[in-house]
């Protein structure tokens, strides 16, 4: 990074942060919520109580923190990149989740699911080769 804090490859960095924080955030949140247990009632009061209990769980807290990182980085990248580009390229998250499930959790992945991850990877590479931004600048925007 240069002294004026500009990143020349900021799109790649932001997309990597988005994919990783979303995948890990969901994994942590899922693990934490299983520890917290079933939500038995959906009345506002019970949801609030369950929410407070969930926030006391370190896995849930970590998951929420990562999902906030995801939300903010996703907002930042959309200030300069096409939504259609970001949406499609971040589908690589499906591949990451399959790989993590297989490598870290030892889950069985069906042949069909592996095929799906290959097809997604090919699609992401194709979209990744298109321009990051194609939108005509709106009023008040930098050209």
């Amino acid at each position, binding site marked *: 990074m240069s002294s*004026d*804090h*500009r*990143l020349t490859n*900021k799109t790649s960095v932001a997309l990597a942060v988005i994919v990783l924080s979303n995948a890990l955030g969901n994994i942590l949140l899922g693990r934490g919520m299983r520890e917290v247990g079933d*939500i038995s009632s*959906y009345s506002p009061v019970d949801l609030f109580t369950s929410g407070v209990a969930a926030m006391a769980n370190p896995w849930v807290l970590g998951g929420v923190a990562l999902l906030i990182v995801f939300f903010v980085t*996703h*907002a*930042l990248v*959309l*200030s*300069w990149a*096409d*939504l*259609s*580009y970001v*949406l*499609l390229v971040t*589908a690589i998250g*499906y591949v990451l989740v*399959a790989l993590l499930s297989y490598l870290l959790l030892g889950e069985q992945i069906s042949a*069909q*699911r592996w*095929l*799906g*991850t*290959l*097809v*997604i*990877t*090919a*699609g*992401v*590479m*194709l*979209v*990744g*080769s*298109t321009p990051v931004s*194609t*939108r*005509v600048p*709106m009023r*008040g*925007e*930098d050209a």
Partner: protein
Amino acid sequence: MILFLLTLVIGGTIAGDLLKASGMRRLGEVDEFHPGALARVARLASRSGLLWLSIVAYAVSFFGFMALVSKTDVSFAVPATAAGYVVETLLARWVLREEVSVRRWSGAALVIAGVALVGG
């Protein structure tokens, strides 16, 4: 009821993404990432009606999802998720005026087919 909830979940996410993208575009390209610059972006973002509306749309989607998983196994929803990619890409083209070239559409078709395979 299930179909209604599914529409809320997927429609809410798509609306949230579109509103977020238009709100952020109006703030202008973020090009500096030191704390002061990010604080300035946060201040501008907090005054954007589009961004607040996007949070409302995501919240609708989230609570729709909670209601849906409480009623049924959600694996049936994968084709709808794949269809959501088609709708969101079309809206990015029509509403946000993005140029979705043949190359980008081809990649989109592969991503959508792959998502359907992964969840099928």
